[in-house]
Protein backbone atom coordinates (compact mmCIF):
# COMPACT_ATOMS: atom_id res chain seq x y z
CA UNK A 1 0.00 0.00 0.00
CA UNK A 2 1.62 3.25 -1.09
CA UNK A 3 1.51 6.49 0.92
CA UNK A 4 -1.22 8.00 -1.27
CA UNK A 5 -3.48 4.99 -0.64
CA UNK A 6 -2.83 5.13 3.11
CA UNK A 7 -3.73 8.83 3.05
CA UNK A 8 -6.92 8.12 1.08
CA UNK A 9 -7.95 5.32 3.46
CA UNK A 10 -7.20 7.51 6.51
CA UNK A 11 -9.34 10.32 5.09
CA UNK A 12 -12.24 7.90 4.59
CA UNK A 13 -11.81 6.75 8.19
CA UNK A 14 -11.63 10.30 9.61
CA UNK A 15 -8.10 9.91 10.93
CA UNK A 16 -5.40 12.51 10.37
CA UNK A 17 -1.94 10.98 10.25
CA UNK A 18 1.35 12.68 11.03
CA UNK A 19 4.28 12.17 8.66
CA UNK A 20 5.80 9.63 11.07
CA UNK A 21 2.51 7.72 11.28
CA UNK A 22 2.12 7.71 7.50
CA UNK A 23 5.58 6.23 7.16
CA UNK A 24 5.02 3.62 9.86
CA UNK A 25 1.55 2.51 8.79
CA UNK A 26 2.57 2.29 5.11
CA UNK A 27 5.29 -0.18 6.04
CA UNK A 28 3.18 -2.14 8.55
CA UNK A 29 0.20 -2.42 6.21
CA UNK A 30 2.42 -3.53 3.34
CA UNK A 31 3.90 -6.28 5.51
CA UNK A 32 0.44 -7.36 6.68
CA UNK A 33 -1.15 -7.31 3.22
CA UNK A 34 1.79 -9.30 1.80
CA UNK A 35 1.08 -11.93 4.42
CA UNK A 36 -2.64 -11.85 3.52
CA UNK A 37 -1.69 -13.00 -0.02
CA UNK A 38 -1.89 -16.45 1.55
CA UNK A 39 -5.66 -16.10 1.12
CA UNK A 40 -5.24 -16.21 -2.68
CA UNK A 41 -4.19 -19.86 -2.48
CA UNK A 42 -6.85 -20.86 0.09
CA UNK A 43 -9.43 -23.36 -1.19
CA UNK A 44 -12.68 -21.91 -2.47
CA UNK A 45 -16.07 -22.72 -1.00
CA UNK A 46 -19.60 -22.30 -2.29
CA UNK A 47 -21.02 -21.32 1.09
CA UNK A 48 -20.34 -17.86 2.41
CA UNK A 49 -22.29 -16.61 5.42
CA UNK A 50 -21.54 -13.61 7.57
CA UNK A 51 -22.06 -15.61 10.79
CA UNK A 52 -20.37 -18.85 11.89
CA UNK A 53 -23.72 -20.32 12.95
CA UNK A 54 -27.20 -20.17 11.46
CA UNK A 55 -29.01 -17.14 12.79
CA UNK A 56 -32.79 -16.80 12.50
CA UNK A 57 -34.53 -13.45 12.28
CA UNK A 58 -36.17 -12.56 15.56
CA UNK A 59 -38.95 -10.01 15.44
CA UNK A 60 -40.66 -8.44 18.41
CA UNK A 61 -44.25 -7.23 18.64
CA UNK A 62 -44.65 -3.82 17.05
CA UNK A 63 -45.73 -2.06 20.20
CA UNK A 64 -44.38 1.24 21.56
CA UNK A 65 -42.32 0.94 24.72
CA UNK A 66 -39.69 2.81 26.67
CA UNK A 67 -36.44 0.84 27.05
CA UNK A 68 -34.53 3.61 28.76
CA UNK A 69 -35.29 6.93 30.38
CA UNK A 70 -34.22 9.65 27.87
CA UNK A 71 -32.78 11.75 30.70
CA UNK A 72 -30.59 8.85 31.78
CA UNK A 73 -29.48 8.32 28.18
CA UNK A 74 -28.44 11.99 27.97
CA UNK A 75 -26.33 11.68 31.13
CA UNK A 76 -22.74 12.64 30.39
CA UNK A 77 -23.54 14.02 26.94
CA UNK A 78 -22.95 17.61 25.89
CA UNK A 79 -26.55 18.83 25.64
CA UNK A 80 -28.59 21.98 25.14
CA UNK A 81 -32.26 21.81 26.15
CA UNK A 82 -32.26 17.99 25.81
CA UNK A 83 -30.65 18.12 22.36
CA UNK A 84 -27.15 16.70 21.83
CA UNK A 85 -24.65 19.34 20.75
CA UNK A 86 -22.66 18.62 17.62
CA UNK A 87 -20.36 20.33 15.15
CA UNK A 88 -21.68 22.37 12.23
CA UNK A 89 -22.60 20.51 9.06
CA UNK A 90 -21.17 22.91 6.49
Amino acid sequence: MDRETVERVARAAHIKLTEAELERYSKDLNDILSYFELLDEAPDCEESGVNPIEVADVLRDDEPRMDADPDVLLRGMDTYERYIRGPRLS
Partner: protein
Amino acid sequence: MTMRSILSGLKETNAKYRMFHAMTEDSDPGDAKFLFSAKDNLTSADMETCSGSKILVGYRPPFDAESIAKMRAAGGKLIGKCNMDEFGFGTFSTNSGLEIPRNPYDLERACGGSSGGSACAAAVFEGHVSLGVSTGGSICCPASFCGVYGIAPTYGRVSRYGLIDYGNSLDKIGVISADAKDLRKYTHIIAGKDAKDPTSCAQPEFKDTGRKLKSVAIPKEGVEGLSKDVEKAFFEAVERLRSMGVDVESIDMPSLKYAMPAYYVLATSEASTNLARYVGMRYGQQEGDHSLKFDDYFSYFRSKYFGDEAKRRILLGTYTRMAGFRDRYYAKALKVRQVVIKDYKRAFETHDAVLAPTMPFSAPRFDDISGMSALDSYKADYLTVPANIAGTPHISVPCGYGSDGMPIGMQFVADHWDEEVLFDAAEEWEKGFEMRKPEVGA
Protein backbone atom coordinates in the same frame (compact mmCIF):
# COMPACT_ATOMS: atom_id res chain seq x y z
CA MET B 1 -9.26 -14.71 51.49
CA THR B 2 -12.81 -13.74 52.48
CA MET B 3 -14.97 -11.48 50.37
CA ARG B 4 -14.51 -8.76 52.97
CA SER B 5 -10.71 -9.06 52.99
CA ILE B 6 -10.61 -8.94 49.17
CA LEU B 7 -12.70 -5.77 49.19
CA SER B 8 -10.73 -4.08 51.96
CA GLY B 9 -7.43 -4.69 50.15
CA LEU B 10 -8.72 -4.02 46.63
CA LYS B 11 -6.94 -0.72 45.96
CA GLU B 12 -3.60 -1.98 47.24
CA THR B 13 -3.81 -5.21 45.25
CA ASN B 14 -4.79 -3.29 42.13
CA ALA B 15 -1.86 -0.91 42.59
CA LYS B 16 0.44 -3.94 42.30
CA TYR B 17 -1.23 -5.86 39.45
CA ARG B 18 -3.27 -3.15 37.68
CA MET B 19 -6.03 -5.54 36.72
CA PHE B 20 -8.85 -2.99 37.13
CA HIS B 21 -9.57 0.27 35.39
CA ALA B 22 -12.54 1.01 37.65
CA MET B 23 -13.49 -0.69 40.91
CA THR B 24 -15.98 -0.64 43.72
CA GLU B 25 -15.52 1.63 46.74
CA ASP B 26 -17.45 -0.82 48.94
CA SER B 27 -15.61 -2.68 51.66
CA ASP B 28 -18.69 -4.61 52.74
CA PRO B 29 -19.90 -7.44 50.48
CA GLY B 30 -23.41 -7.10 51.94
CA ASP B 31 -25.54 -10.10 51.00
CA ALA B 32 -23.44 -10.99 47.93
CA LYS B 33 -23.00 -14.71 47.29
CA PHE B 34 -19.82 -14.22 45.26
CA LEU B 35 -17.53 -11.52 43.86
CA PHE B 36 -16.88 -11.13 40.16
CA SER B 37 -15.20 -8.77 37.74
CA ALA B 38 -15.79 -8.07 34.07
CA LYS B 39 -13.78 -7.00 31.07
CA ASP B 40 -14.17 -3.27 30.54
CA ASN B 41 -15.91 -3.65 27.17
CA LEU B 42 -19.04 -4.89 29.00
CA THR B 43 -21.24 -1.98 30.04
CA SER B 44 -21.91 -1.44 33.74
CA ALA B 45 -24.38 1.10 35.08
CA ASP B 46 -22.37 1.76 38.25
CA MET B 47 -18.85 2.02 36.82
CA GLU B 48 -17.17 3.90 33.99
CA THR B 49 -16.77 1.74 30.86
CA CYS B 50 -13.88 2.59 28.54
CA SER B 51 -13.01 -0.61 26.63
CA GLY B 52 -9.35 0.24 27.19
CA SER B 53 -9.64 3.41 25.11
CA LYS B 54 -8.92 7.06 25.89
CA ILE B 55 -11.74 8.04 23.54
CA LEU B 56 -14.30 6.58 25.98
CA VAL B 57 -12.93 8.12 29.18
CA GLY B 58 -15.89 9.55 31.07
CA TYR B 59 -18.47 7.18 29.56
CA ARG B 60 -21.02 6.05 32.15
CA PRO B 61 -23.40 3.59 30.46
CA PRO B 62 -27.05 3.87 31.47
CA PHE B 63 -27.47 0.07 31.62
CA ASP B 64 -25.73 -3.21 32.48
CA ALA B 65 -24.64 -5.65 29.79
CA GLU B 66 -26.95 -8.68 29.86
CA SER B 67 -24.11 -10.94 31.10
CA ILE B 68 -23.34 -8.58 33.99
CA ALA B 69 -27.05 -8.25 34.83
CA LYS B 70 -27.34 -12.06 34.99
CA MET B 71 -24.30 -12.35 37.29
CA ARG B 72 -25.79 -9.73 39.61
CA ALA B 73 -29.18 -11.49 39.55
CA ALA B 74 -27.42 -14.71 40.62
CA GLY B 75 -26.05 -12.94 43.70
CA GLY B 76 -22.75 -11.65 42.31
CA LYS B 77 -21.14 -8.39 43.32
CA LEU B 78 -19.21 -6.60 40.58
CA ILE B 79 -15.93 -5.46 42.10
CA GLY B 80 -14.01 -4.16 39.09
CA LYS B 81 -13.81 -3.51 35.36
CA CYS B 82 -10.77 -5.21 33.90
CA ASN B 83 -7.97 -3.60 31.92
CA MET B 84 -7.62 -4.80 28.36
CA ASP B 85 -6.20 -3.98 24.93
CA GLU B 86 -8.01 -1.01 23.42
CA PHE B 87 -11.33 -2.38 22.08
CA GLY B 88 -9.76 -5.87 22.29
CA PHE B 89 -7.05 -5.10 19.71
CA GLY B 90 -4.10 -7.13 20.96
CA THR B 91 -2.47 -10.34 22.15
CA PHE B 92 -0.79 -9.05 25.32
CA SER B 93 -3.07 -6.34 26.85
CA THR B 94 -0.24 -3.89 26.16
CA ASN B 95 -2.21 -1.98 23.48
CA SER B 96 -4.16 -0.15 26.16
CA GLY B 97 -4.92 3.54 26.28
CA LEU B 98 -5.28 3.16 30.05
CA GLU B 99 -3.42 0.70 32.32
CA ILE B 100 -1.54 -2.49 31.44
CA PRO B 101 -2.13 -5.47 33.78
CA ARG B 102 0.90 -7.29 35.27
CA ASN B 103 1.29 -11.06 35.19
CA PRO B 104 0.82 -12.46 38.73
CA TYR B 105 3.71 -14.93 38.20
CA ASP B 106 6.18 -12.23 37.10
CA LEU B 107 5.31 -8.54 37.16
CA GLU B 108 7.69 -7.87 34.26
CA ARG B 109 5.59 -10.06 31.97
CA ALA B 110 2.29 -9.61 30.17
CA CYS B 111 -1.02 -11.20 31.19
CA GLY B 112 -1.94 -11.92 27.58
CA GLY B 113 -4.74 -10.31 25.69
CA SER B 114 -7.05 -8.99 25.30
CA SER B 115 -8.88 -10.06 28.49
CA GLY B 116 -5.62 -9.67 30.44
CA GLY B 117 -7.08 -7.92 33.48
CA SER B 118 -9.77 -10.59 33.77
CA ALA B 119 -7.26 -13.48 33.78
CA CYS B 120 -5.06 -11.55 36.22
CA ALA B 121 -7.99 -11.06 38.63
CA ALA B 122 -8.94 -14.75 38.37
CA ALA B 123 -5.36 -15.75 39.25
CA VAL B 124 -4.90 -13.27 42.11
CA PHE B 125 -8.22 -13.30 44.01
CA GLU B 126 -9.22 -16.56 45.66
CA GLY B 127 -12.60 -17.94 44.58
CA HIS B 128 -12.93 -15.22 41.95
CA VAL B 129 -14.68 -15.44 38.59
CA SER B 130 -14.22 -12.92 35.81
CA LEU B 131 -16.11 -12.32 32.57
CA GLY B 132 -13.90 -12.10 29.50
CA VAL B 133 -14.62 -11.57 25.82
CA SER B 134 -12.97 -13.45 22.97
CA THR B 135 -12.84 -12.28 19.37
CA GLY B 136 -9.71 -14.11 18.19
CA GLY B 137 -8.41 -15.77 21.35
CA SER B 138 -8.83 -13.11 24.00
CA ILE B 139 -10.06 -15.48 26.71
CA CYS B 140 -7.85 -18.53 26.17
CA CYS B 141 -4.61 -16.61 25.58
CA PRO B 142 -4.65 -14.69 28.89
CA ALA B 143 -5.99 -17.75 30.74
CA SER B 144 -2.96 -19.65 29.44
CA PHE B 145 -0.47 -16.89 30.35
CA CYS B 146 -1.92 -16.45 33.85
CA GLY B 147 -2.29 -20.18 34.64
CA VAL B 148 -6.09 -20.29 34.97
CA TYR B 149 -9.06 -21.86 33.16
CA GLY B 150 -11.03 -19.97 30.52
CA ILE B 151 -13.90 -20.76 28.17
CA ALA B 152 -15.12 -18.98 25.06
CA PRO B 153 -18.54 -20.58 24.45
CA THR B 154 -20.14 -21.10 21.05
CA TYR B 155 -20.79 -17.87 19.14
CA GLY B 156 -24.34 -16.86 20.14
CA ARG B 157 -24.44 -18.80 23.45
CA VAL B 158 -24.22 -15.62 25.56
CA SER B 159 -26.08 -12.43 24.70
CA ARG B 160 -23.83 -9.66 23.41
CA TYR B 161 -26.27 -6.98 24.54
CA GLY B 162 -24.17 -4.33 26.26
CA LEU B 163 -20.90 -5.52 24.74
CA ILE B 164 -18.88 -2.78 23.04
CA ASP B 165 -18.45 -4.47 19.66
CA TYR B 166 -15.10 -5.33 18.13
CA GLY B 167 -16.13 -7.88 15.47
CA ASN B 168 -19.85 -8.70 15.59
CA SER B 169 -19.53 -12.08 13.88
CA LEU B 170 -16.69 -13.11 16.20
CA ASP B 171 -17.28 -11.67 19.68
CA LYS B 172 -18.11 -14.17 22.44
CA ILE B 173 -18.51 -13.54 26.17
CA GLY B 174 -17.08 -16.23 28.45
CA VAL B 175 -15.75 -17.08 31.88
CA ILE B 176 -12.26 -17.15 33.44
CA SER B 177 -11.48 -18.74 36.83
CA ALA B 178 -8.76 -20.63 38.70
CA ASP B 179 -11.37 -23.33 39.42
CA ALA B 180 -12.43 -25.47 36.43
CA LYS B 181 -15.86 -26.11 37.98
CA ASP B 182 -16.66 -22.39 37.84
CA LEU B 183 -16.62 -22.46 34.06
CA ARG B 184 -19.68 -24.70 33.82
CA LYS B 185 -21.45 -23.00 36.73
CA TYR B 186 -21.11 -19.41 35.49
CA THR B 187 -21.45 -20.12 31.77
CA HIS B 188 -24.84 -21.65 32.58
CA ILE B 189 -25.73 -18.45 34.45
CA ILE B 190 -24.84 -16.01 31.66
CA ALA B 191 -26.03 -18.15 28.70
CA GLY B 192 -29.50 -18.07 27.20
CA LYS B 193 -31.71 -16.51 24.58
CA ASP B 194 -32.10 -12.76 24.69
CA ALA B 195 -34.38 -10.91 22.28
CA LYS B 196 -32.04 -7.93 22.52
CA ASP B 197 -29.34 -10.00 20.72
CA PRO B 198 -30.95 -12.04 17.91
CA THR B 199 -27.76 -14.09 17.41
CA SER B 200 -28.36 -15.61 20.85
CA CYS B 201 -31.83 -16.81 19.89
CA ALA B 202 -30.69 -19.66 17.62
CA GLN B 203 -29.08 -21.58 20.48
CA PRO B 204 -30.25 -25.02 21.60
CA GLU B 205 -30.23 -26.13 25.24
CA PHE B 206 -26.90 -27.32 26.65
CA LYS B 207 -26.27 -30.93 25.64
CA ASP B 208 -26.28 -33.71 28.24
CA THR B 209 -24.42 -32.50 31.30
CA GLY B 210 -21.43 -34.60 32.20
CA ARG B 211 -20.63 -36.08 28.78
CA LYS B 212 -17.17 -37.63 29.01
CA LEU B 213 -14.25 -36.76 26.75
CA LYS B 214 -13.14 -40.00 25.09
CA SER B 215 -11.04 -38.96 22.12
CA VAL B 216 -9.12 -35.92 20.88
CA ALA B 217 -7.50 -35.06 17.57
CA ILE B 218 -4.26 -33.09 17.48
CA PRO B 219 -3.76 -31.20 14.19
CA LYS B 220 -0.19 -31.42 12.91
CA GLU B 221 -0.48 -27.71 12.03
CA GLY B 222 -1.24 -26.99 15.70
CA VAL B 223 2.06 -28.27 17.07
CA GLU B 224 4.36 -26.36 14.72
CA GLY B 225 6.40 -23.34 15.78
CA LEU B 226 6.22 -24.00 19.52
CA SER B 227 8.77 -22.87 22.08
CA LYS B 228 10.68 -25.73 23.73
CA ASP B 229 8.91 -25.19 27.04
CA VAL B 230 5.46 -25.30 25.44
CA GLU B 231 6.30 -28.38 23.36
CA LYS B 232 7.59 -30.25 26.43
CA ALA B 233 4.66 -29.32 28.67
CA PHE B 234 2.09 -30.04 25.96
CA PHE B 235 3.33 -33.52 25.04
CA GLU B 236 3.69 -34.47 28.72
CA ALA B 237 0.07 -33.37 29.12
CA VAL B 238 -0.93 -35.52 26.13
CA GLU B 239 0.66 -38.53 27.84
CA ARG B 240 -1.33 -37.76 30.98
CA LEU B 241 -4.53 -37.57 28.90
CA ARG B 242 -3.74 -41.01 27.47
CA SER B 243 -3.25 -42.35 30.98
CA MET B 244 -6.70 -40.96 31.79
CA GLY B 245 -8.15 -43.18 29.04
CA VAL B 246 -8.49 -40.57 26.29
CA ASP B 247 -7.69 -41.70 22.74
CA VAL B 248 -5.31 -39.32 20.97
CA GLU B 249 -4.84 -39.16 17.22
CA SER B 250 -2.75 -36.87 15.03
CA ILE B 251 -4.66 -35.41 12.05
CA ASP B 252 -4.20 -32.96 9.16
CA MET B 253 -6.18 -29.70 9.21
CA PRO B 254 -4.66 -27.82 6.27
CA SER B 255 -7.17 -24.96 6.44
CA LEU B 256 -5.78 -23.79 9.78
CA LYS B 257 -2.98 -21.86 8.11
CA TYR B 258 -5.52 -19.68 6.28
CA ALA B 259 -7.49 -18.90 9.43
CA MET B 260 -5.10 -16.21 10.67
CA PRO B 261 -5.23 -13.90 7.60
CA ALA B 262 -8.97 -14.58 7.21
CA TYR B 263 -9.53 -13.68 10.84
CA TYR B 264 -7.67 -10.38 10.62
CA VAL B 265 -9.57 -9.41 7.45
CA LEU B 266 -12.97 -10.13 9.03
CA ALA B 267 -12.09 -8.70 12.44
CA THR B 268 -10.63 -5.43 11.14
CA SER B 269 -13.40 -5.00 8.54
CA GLU B 270 -16.03 -5.28 11.25
CA ALA B 271 -14.03 -3.19 13.73
CA SER B 272 -13.54 -0.34 11.28
CA THR B 273 -17.31 0.04 10.89
CA ASN B 274 -18.04 -0.45 14.61
CA LEU B 275 -15.57 2.25 15.61
CA ALA B 276 -17.14 4.79 13.23
CA ARG B 277 -19.50 5.78 16.05
CA TYR B 278 -16.70 7.28 18.18
CA VAL B 279 -16.53 10.87 16.99
CA GLY B 280 -16.63 12.98 20.15
CA MET B 281 -20.40 12.95 20.51
CA ARG B 282 -22.60 10.88 22.82
CA TYR B 283 -19.81 8.65 24.27
CA GLY B 284 -16.75 9.58 26.34
CA GLN B 285 -14.58 12.55 25.34
CA GLN B 286 -16.58 15.53 24.07
CA GLU B 287 -14.43 18.61 24.66
CA GLY B 288 -14.18 19.61 20.98
CA ASP B 289 -14.70 22.91 19.22
CA HIS B 290 -18.25 22.94 17.83
CA SER B 291 -17.37 25.72 15.39
CA LEU B 292 -15.38 23.14 13.40
CA LYS B 293 -16.98 21.51 10.36
CA PHE B 294 -18.15 17.98 11.24
CA ASP B 295 -15.40 16.26 9.20
CA ASP B 296 -12.69 18.17 11.04
CA TYR B 297 -14.43 17.73 14.40
CA PHE B 298 -14.66 13.95 13.99
CA SER B 299 -11.09 13.67 12.72
CA TYR B 300 -9.80 15.70 15.68
CA PHE B 301 -11.21 13.24 18.22
CA ARG B 302 -10.32 10.07 16.37
CA SER B 303 -6.75 11.19 15.65
CA LYS B 304 -6.15 12.41 19.19
CA TYR B 305 -7.72 9.61 21.24
CA PHE B 306 -7.45 6.35 19.27
CA GLY B 307 -4.25 4.46 20.06
CA ASP B 308 -1.65 3.18 17.60
CA GLU B 309 -3.11 -0.31 17.10
CA ALA B 310 -6.70 0.98 16.86
CA LYS B 311 -5.65 3.29 14.03
CA ARG B 312 -3.78 0.46 12.31
CA ARG B 313 -6.81 -1.86 12.43
CA ILE B 314 -9.20 0.87 11.30
CA LEU B 315 -6.95 1.58 8.29
CA LEU B 316 -6.59 -2.13 7.49
CA GLY B 317 -10.32 -2.82 7.81
CA THR B 318 -11.31 0.24 5.80
CA TYR B 319 -8.94 -0.83 3.02
CA THR B 320 -10.10 -4.46 2.84
CA ARG B 321 -13.73 -3.31 2.49
CA MET B 322 -13.04 -0.75 -0.25
CA ALA B 323 -14.45 -1.22 -3.74
CA GLY B 324 -11.88 -3.07 -5.81
CA PHE B 325 -10.39 -4.96 -2.84
CA ARG B 326 -13.50 -6.35 -1.15
CA ASP B 327 -13.74 -9.57 -3.15
CA ARG B 328 -10.07 -10.39 -2.75
CA TYR B 329 -10.07 -9.92 1.03
CA TYR B 330 -13.45 -9.74 2.76
CA ALA B 331 -15.44 -12.04 0.47
CA LYS B 332 -12.60 -14.58 0.38
CA ALA B 333 -12.23 -14.50 4.17
CA LEU B 334 -15.92 -15.37 4.55
CA LYS B 335 -15.37 -18.43 2.35
CA VAL B 336 -12.26 -19.44 4.31
CA ARG B 337 -14.35 -19.32 7.49
CA GLN B 338 -16.64 -21.99 5.98
CA VAL B 339 -13.66 -24.11 4.94
CA VAL B 340 -12.30 -23.99 8.50
CA ILE B 341 -15.72 -24.93 9.92
CA LYS B 342 -15.90 -27.91 7.54
CA ASP B 343 -12.44 -29.08 8.66
CA TYR B 344 -13.51 -28.94 12.30
CA LYS B 345 -16.80 -30.76 11.56
CA ARG B 346 -14.84 -33.51 9.82
CA ALA B 347 -12.65 -33.91 12.91
CA PHE B 348 -15.72 -33.99 15.18
CA GLU B 349 -17.19 -36.92 13.22
CA THR B 350 -14.65 -39.18 14.91
CA HIS B 351 -13.38 -37.17 17.89
CA ASP B 352 -14.94 -35.30 20.80
CA ALA B 353 -12.50 -32.40 20.61
CA VAL B 354 -9.53 -30.94 18.78
CA LEU B 355 -6.51 -30.25 20.99
CA ALA B 356 -3.41 -28.05 20.68
CA PRO B 357 -1.35 -25.76 22.89
CA THR B 358 -3.22 -22.52 23.57
CA MET B 359 -0.28 -20.26 22.69
CA PRO B 360 3.06 -21.09 21.05
CA PHE B 361 4.99 -19.56 23.98
CA SER B 362 4.44 -18.59 27.61
CA ALA B 363 3.90 -15.00 28.78
CA PRO B 364 6.58 -12.78 27.23
CA ARG B 365 8.43 -9.96 28.97
CA PHE B 366 7.24 -6.42 28.27
CA ASP B 367 10.59 -5.47 26.75
CA ASP B 368 10.34 -8.41 24.31
CA ILE B 369 6.83 -7.34 23.28
CA SER B 370 7.94 -3.79 22.55
CA GLY B 371 10.36 -5.19 19.95
CA MET B 372 7.64 -7.09 18.07
CA SER B 373 6.12 -5.77 14.83
CA ALA B 374 2.34 -5.67 14.36
CA LEU B 375 2.56 -8.68 12.04
CA ASP B 376 4.68 -10.64 14.57
CA SER B 377 1.97 -10.04 17.12
CA TYR B 378 -0.82 -11.14 14.73
CA LYS B 379 1.10 -14.33 13.89
CA ALA B 380 1.24 -15.25 17.59
CA ASP B 381 -2.53 -15.84 17.42
CA TYR B 382 -2.34 -18.73 14.93
CA LEU B 383 -3.44 -21.34 17.48
CA THR B 384 -6.45 -19.45 18.86
CA VAL B 385 -7.98 -17.80 15.78
CA PRO B 386 -9.22 -20.98 14.00
CA ALA B 387 -11.78 -21.85 16.70
CA ASN B 388 -12.78 -18.20 16.95
CA ILE B 389 -13.37 -17.75 13.24
CA ALA B 390 -15.40 -21.01 13.29
CA GLY B 391 -17.47 -19.88 16.30
CA THR B 392 -16.80 -23.22 17.99
CA PRO B 393 -16.51 -23.37 21.80
CA HIS B 394 -13.00 -23.69 23.20
CA ILE B 395 -11.46 -23.95 26.62
CA SER B 396 -7.93 -23.35 27.89
CA VAL B 397 -6.66 -25.42 30.81
CA PRO B 398 -3.30 -25.06 32.58
CA CYS B 399 -1.18 -28.02 31.42
CA GLY B 400 2.27 -27.34 32.88
CA TYR B 401 4.98 -24.80 33.65
CA GLY B 402 8.05 -23.71 31.75
CA SER B 403 11.65 -23.84 32.92
CA ASP B 404 11.15 -20.22 34.03
CA GLY B 405 8.10 -21.17 36.11
CA MET B 406 5.61 -19.46 33.78
CA PRO B 407 2.26 -21.23 33.21
CA ILE B 408 1.47 -23.01 29.93
CA GLY B 409 -2.00 -23.86 28.66
CA MET B 410 -3.62 -26.24 26.21
CA GLN B 411 -6.83 -25.63 24.32
CA PHE B 412 -9.68 -28.05 23.62
CA VAL B 413 -12.10 -27.14 20.80
CA ALA B 414 -15.52 -28.84 20.54
CA ASP B 415 -18.39 -28.74 18.06
CA HIS B 416 -20.90 -25.89 18.03
CA TRP B 417 -23.09 -25.93 21.16
CA ASP B 418 -21.12 -28.80 22.77
CA GLU B 419 -19.64 -26.89 25.71
CA GLU B 420 -20.48 -29.72 28.11
CA VAL B 421 -17.77 -32.01 26.81
CA LEU B 422 -15.29 -29.18 27.39
CA PHE B 423 -16.47 -28.57 30.94
CA ASP B 424 -16.08 -32.26 31.65
CA ALA B 425 -12.61 -32.35 30.10
CA ALA B 426 -11.47 -29.41 32.25
CA GLU B 427 -12.94 -30.86 35.45
CA GLU B 428 -11.42 -34.30 34.83
CA TRP B 429 -8.07 -32.71 33.98
CA GLU B 430 -8.13 -30.59 37.14
CA LYS B 431 -8.30 -33.70 39.35
CA GLY B 432 -4.71 -34.59 40.09
CA PHE B 433 -3.14 -31.74 38.11
CA GLU B 434 -0.55 -30.04 40.28
CA MET B 435 -1.69 -26.48 39.87
CA ARG B 436 0.64 -23.83 41.21
CA LYS B 437 -0.59 -20.55 42.61
CA PRO B 438 1.24 -17.26 42.15
CA GLU B 439 2.60 -15.65 45.29
CA VAL B 440 0.20 -12.79 45.70
CA GLY B 441 0.00 -9.84 48.04
CA ALA B 442 -0.47 -6.14 47.86
